[in-house]
């Protein structure tokens, strides 16, 4: 079995992501977040696995807990995707209601009555 | 309301009038109820007479044409300027409006559309002609009155009655503050709110109870489904018309643990209200029957109450505590305590006689005396 993370010959951190658990969108969003300190590259390693290559922008930076942090964030991004499917419509409904004029028809008809 | 009894004469009616213990000008007499302690007084033109004296079989001739109630005990509790309701068939004298009190209320109706589990004034049918009586009462109220409450039952039931009553109040006491105690449920209809607002009362406050920060809990306490939703809709409608609102929370066993969350809920959802009042429970009516289930000792809820009150005060919301004795409140809450119990319900116990703060303290409801006495004895009276 492949390890989930390893340091490559090019001094990049390689993370193996199971395609069946994480959607591409979640993976891309997670990569985006880490672009403050790392260059990111994604390759398909096999039918079931994506490989994320993280290259340090600054050589003095340590990899440290990067793998752990990346996977944690990936889980949260996946949760967010599923949340969007669950209540995205409700969210839009709330904003729509927020900007809907209140009792517009009643106000409108009152205004029209007064002007006639 | 306080009431007295006596022996009525044969007139069969219900009357409203203003008490006077001395003679008044003839044009005022038709609305005045003269209270006398000797039967030789000139009683011509008065609406009715009340006397402590016993009138025997021989009725003085002047008394034949005028409604009167005799042999009245507690004669001394009738003050000049009080407004009373005389029920001639039973000889009951009910003091509807006390001249010397700042806590007078008009009962718009006894009916209610909810059945709160701690209701001190459970719903019942209205006596006949109650609307006419209320309107007469309002006409007699002193124009210089500072404040009057409109309560019930649920005043918003009988929409036309309420509108008429409010219009009459506005006409006769344009400077008074009118406090409308309502559960706000029927105010979910925007046009009802609009109709009230259009009366044009300068100083009108809607006093609305909310007992919980979540729907099922509030609905259970109200014993009415969707009351939480309806009341909130009513609140937003009132706010749309920029009306003054006071939220009231009765503190008892069902909600005391969530007082801080209730305060938080009010702040985030109704930041526009003018005032928030936390009230001790009155163990009358339904509350009396269920006292074991409803009663929670102030010693147990004080910590939650303190958190809730200070939370709101921190956020610059106006907040008060009604119906709570100063000796049971921590000093941090003294500034929020209000003398608020209607005078007819309010007493002090003997231990209070030595208390320095008695003047400033709200005292007790009669109905909670026994519970409170146990607590007061445990603490040091200051």
């Amino acid at each position, binding site marked *: 079995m492949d390890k989930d993370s390893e340091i490559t010959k090019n001094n990049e951190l390689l993370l193996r992501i199971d395609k069946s658990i994480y959607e591409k969108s979640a993976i891309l969003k997670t990569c985006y977040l880490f672009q403050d300190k790392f260059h990111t590259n994604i390759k398909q390693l096999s039918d079931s696995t994506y490989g994320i290559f993280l290259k340090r922008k600054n050589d003095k930076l340590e990899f440290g807990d990067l793998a752990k942090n990346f996977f944690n964030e990936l889980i949260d991004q996946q949760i967010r995707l599923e949340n969007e499917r669950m209540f995205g419509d409700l969210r839009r409904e709330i904003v729509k209601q927020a900007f809907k004029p209140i009792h517009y028809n009643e106000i409108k008809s009152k205004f029209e009555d007064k002007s006639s | 309301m306080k009431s007295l009894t006596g022996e009525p004469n044969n007139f069969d009616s219900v009357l409203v009038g203003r008490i006077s213990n001395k003679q008044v000008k003839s044009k005022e007499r038709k609305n005045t109820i003269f209270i006398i302690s000797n039967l030789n007084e000139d009683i011509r033109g008065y609406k009715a007479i009340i006397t402590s004296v016993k009138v025997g079989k021989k009725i003085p001739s002047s008394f034949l044409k005028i409604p009167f109630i005799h042999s009245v005990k507690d004669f001394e509790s009738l003050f000049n300027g009080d407004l009373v309701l005389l029920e001639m068939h039973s000889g009951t004298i009910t003091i509807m409006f006390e001249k010397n009190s700042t806590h007078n209320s008009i009962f718009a109706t006894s009916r209610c559309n909810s059945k709160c589990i701690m209701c001190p004034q459970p719903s019942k049918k209205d006596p006949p002609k109650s609307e006419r009586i209320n309107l007469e009462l309002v006409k007699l109220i002193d124009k210089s009155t500072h404040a009057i409450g409109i309560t019930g039952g649920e005043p918003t039931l009988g929409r036309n009655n309420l509108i008429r009553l409010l219009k009459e109040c506005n006409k006769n006491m344009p400077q008074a503050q009118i406090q409308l105690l309502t559960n706000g449920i029927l105010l979910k209809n925007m046009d009802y709110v609009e109709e009230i607002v259009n009366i044009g009362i300068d100083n009108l406050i809607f006093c609305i109870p909310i007992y919980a920060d979540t*729907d099922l809990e509030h609905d259970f306490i109200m014993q009415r489904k969707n009351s939480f939703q309806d009341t909130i809709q009513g609140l937003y409608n009132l706010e749309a018309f920029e009306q003054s609102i006071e939220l009231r929370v009765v503190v008892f066993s069902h909600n005391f643990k969530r007082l801080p969350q209730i305060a938080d809920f009010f702040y985030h959802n109704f*930041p526009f209200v003018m005032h928030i009042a936390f009230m001790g429970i009155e163990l009358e009516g339904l509350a009396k029957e269920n006292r074991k289930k409803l009663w929670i000792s102030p010693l147990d809820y004080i910590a939650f109450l303190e958190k809730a009150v200070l939370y709101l005060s921190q956020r610059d919301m106006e907040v008060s505590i009604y119906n709570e004795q100063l000796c049971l409140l921590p000093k941090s809450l003294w500034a929020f305590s209000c003398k608020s119990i209607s005078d007819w319900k309010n007493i002090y116990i003997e231990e209070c006689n030595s208390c320095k703060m008695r003047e400033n303290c709200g005292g007790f409801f009669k109905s909670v005396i026994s519970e409170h006495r146990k607590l007061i004895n445990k603490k040091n009276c200051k």
Partner: protein
Amino acid sequence: MRTIKPYTILPYRFMRFKDEVLLVNEAGDFIFVKNTDFDKFRKFELRTQAETFLNLKSKHLVTESNLALPVYQLATKYRTKKSFLNDFTALHIFILTLRCNQKCRYCQAGSENETCYEHDMDISIAKKCVDYVFKSPSPVIKIEFQGGEPLLNFEVLKFVVKYAKALNKKHKKDLEFVVCTNLIALSDKILKFLKKNKILISTSLDGPRNIHDANRILPNGEGTYEIVLKNIKRAQVTTGAQNVAALMVTTKSNFHNLEKVVDEYIAKGFDSIFFRTLHPFGRAARERNTLGYDIEEFVRNYKKALNYIIEINLSGKYFSEIYATIVLSRILTPFSTGFVDLQSPAGTGIGCAVYSQNGDVFVSDEARMLAKMGDLRFRIGNVKENTYKEIFDGKTLREIISSSCVETLPQCSECAFQMYCGADPVRNYYAQGSLIGHKPTSEFHERNYLIIKHLFELIRQDDPEIMNVFWSWITNRSIYDIKRINIRELNEKPNR
């Protein structure tokens, strides 16, 4: 067999804080829950009688049978939060002149030689600008005089004030004036005019003498501390201390000593400070090496200074930090806070407009700086050439605004801080090449994110004393008022 969910989860955003999770609902109400409770909540395993569940319900994060009510309440609260949008442009900045009598090392405003009068706004343009100001539907109008040094064009300042007040007789708006000045040219005549017309003064004080004079210098290199302080005093005495405010710019010269800057502000009679960061424009960009710092360092120092200020408040003296106060208001209150530099959609144009000395209208001062450097991307029009509608309802402004809604920006769209934060498309464009920018490497993002996170850490600790300080800032009351230490008279209230 289908399982029916025991409750409905309402829209939320989340962020992890050690052993807890911050949940924020669609209207910006928040709650911290334990990690274990968060997992149960997500998986529909919370017991509906549990206290946590009731707390989430109260915060409109879950609901049982009633969906209509929480949606209605959330919509109402959302509308309240965004009500800063209702009134359109309230802040109108007049660049009276590009001339300046100082030559600050970090200047981004543009400071031409004092004698180059062609850089002044003339009366005909000023008049047209005021006409356009009053076309704004906002019932509150704030006219802010900037420059260069606005007092150098005092004649036009006077004209604008008089003409605006005359127009306002018809419009009856809540009209306010501010002059952003270094106070060097504060003659008695000018001071008298400012007092008579109730014009607020906003000046710059970077710290005690050695800090202030490190960067805020005259063209000949001399410091300005002495004269600035003398004139601050004169202004405070004449117009009242509450009408004189000071701002500072954080540079390498002072960011290790922010506490000393606070001490200086208190000593000189100010009751608030704003730790503004350097913007990479103008001279500041050229002097980056000597003046600049990285954001993480800045935030470390900011946190220290904030602690220091909190301690000062706890000892009884009211003193607030403005940025923290604004963010705390957004987090802790249900109200809308208008702050054009950090809002969504951005305040560019729709909250604030800049009228430069030649009549060009820009969405922000940075937009004007870009124009000076040759890029007219953010010029939305000119008062001599375009109608009000062309300027404020034109394609340029709409494009800028639609790129500034955090609800739709990458990384922002999922962020738990969304309701408390904002976007700066002009800054993104300048620093990173596009209106949307690249969030992970954005200094604007980093600064706001780190400070908001720090404030949430403090809120999470729930120290009652610190919370009292925060509320004293938000409600603008002293700690004693917050704690009700003076027990108010226990009189019977007339309304009860």
